């Protein structure tokens, strides 16, 4: 459903991605693992063309989206929950969700609120007044509201209390029944529980691809993830 072929990307003079290729198939949860600063977030940003790829190809639902405008890529059905959540801090929770409806062909606010019922009680609150966990829920709810065909989430469990992390895992499990997911995740257990396939990113390239089982059987974790 999503194919990334040999993309290179850089911030100004600093090259970050050196030929990354990966694929997310229908009904799949794909996880990107890797140490801090190896370029995981940049991969997602490049897919959204928030960072412009220097070379390479990105295809989504069979169509070339390389270098297309970010809003057009999103409209084609790519949902994105960025690393820093990017809640609209001056908008209410309700308006944050409504923002996802503006350009959506099949908005689904009800589904989003079913996943995170607590948000129903916060609808009139401004984004900036939410706790970190609530903001994370809102960021995901917003992406669900947009009614995407594939969801990319960048470290959604980061900074969450263990209890909320468990809730999040359930939501992602539910979400995975509806659409393929590309997940950046530092939490090894979460990755092992959710992923169908795992890519380990090292220094802007793919160092390992395989199922969670294959990863456990190989030395990949010690080699690429341990400090």
């Amino acid at each position, binding site marked *: 459903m999503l194919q990334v072929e040999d993309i290179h990307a850089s911030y100004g003079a600093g090259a970050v991605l050196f030929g990354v290729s990966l694929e997310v198939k229908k009904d799949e949860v794909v996880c990107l693992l890797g140490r801090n600063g190896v370029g995981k977030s940049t991969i997602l940003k490049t897919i*959204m063309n*928030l960072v412009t790829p220097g070379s390479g190809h990105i295809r989504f639902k069979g169509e070339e989206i390389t270098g297309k*405008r*970010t*809003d*057009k890529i*999103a*409209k084609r059905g790519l949902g*994105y929950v*960025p690393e820093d959540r*990017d*809640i*609209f*801090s*001056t*908008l209410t929770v309700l*308006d944050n969700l*409504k*923002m*996802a409806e*503006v*350009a*959506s062909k099949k908005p689904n606010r009800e589904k989003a609120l079913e996943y995170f019922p607590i948000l129903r009680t916060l609808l009139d609150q401004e984004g900036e007044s939410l706790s970190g966990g609530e903001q994370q829920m809102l960021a995901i709810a*917003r992406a669900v509201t*947009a009614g995407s065909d594939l969801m990319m989430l960048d470290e959604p469990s980061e900074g969450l209390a263990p209890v909320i992390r468990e809730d999040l895992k359930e939501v992602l499990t539910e979400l995975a029944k509806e659409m393929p997911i590309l997940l950046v995740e530092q939490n090894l257990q979460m990755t092992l529980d959710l992923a169908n396939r795992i890519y380990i990113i090292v220094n802007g390239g793919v160092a390992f691809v395989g199922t969670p089982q294959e990863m456990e059987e190989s030395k990949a974790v010690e080699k690429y993830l341990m400090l």
Partner: protein
Amino acid sequence: MTDFLILLAGQLMNGFVFGMILALIAMGLSIIFGLMDIINFAHGAYYTLGAYVAISVMGFFDNFWVVLIVVPAVVMVVGFFVESVLLRPLYGKDPVFSLLLSFGVMLGIVQVIRLVWGVAYRPFSPPDALSGSVYLGFLHFSVYRLFVVGMCIGLAILVWLLLKKTSVGMTVRAAVDKRDMVKALGINVSAVFTVVFGVGVGLAGLAGALAAPLLAVYPEMGIQILVESFVVVVIGGMGSFKGSIVAGIIVGEIMALTTLWYPEMSHVAVYVFMAVFLLTRPKGLFGSAI
């Protein structure tokens, strides 16, 4: 009341009038900056253009109400053109480019004004229906100034409603905060840019038309007020609508009150206030929130 209190009250009223005009200009300047990262040096030139177009429209139709509709419309169209043709290719490039372009647009507009309308000061009287003064119980105050205050308050409420109650306004507020995220939700931000830029400079043009009967009309009239509007934007907080209005009134009053005691210092006082204010609140009154 003593003469002094009457004088003071009159000057406070004048400060409020000028403050509201500043607020009208600063609103556009501030939201354009917050949304598009553009320091619009030409903003004062659109204000000047508004004043001159007002003179011509008044000469042609002899009807101030027509002026109040035609002026913002004309200036807005100029703004649409500048944004979509000149500025758009520069988005995503170094902000220095759009800064230089705005500077060029400012010089261009002022030059066109000189060619079309000449360099001399132009008189512009308030319309008959709004001339004269009313007695407010303790002082006589110009009807036209009261009208300007009413218009500015009305426009501020209108802009506020547009920002708060419409879906375009919601998108603008979201994009001022997190522009990339708005794109990532499938919204074409550049269409929003065009609207905001056009409306923002249209408001500056309207401010020029409203100010024309109060302040001298000449080709460089926009320069001083641009600098003062920047001060308002900085004090109010970049990108903040509320801040533009509150800071506009503060700056208007500071200028009016220093004029009362020490006229030569009225412009300097504003900068001194800004410097001191920024030391205590570097982000301005309202940070980056609208």
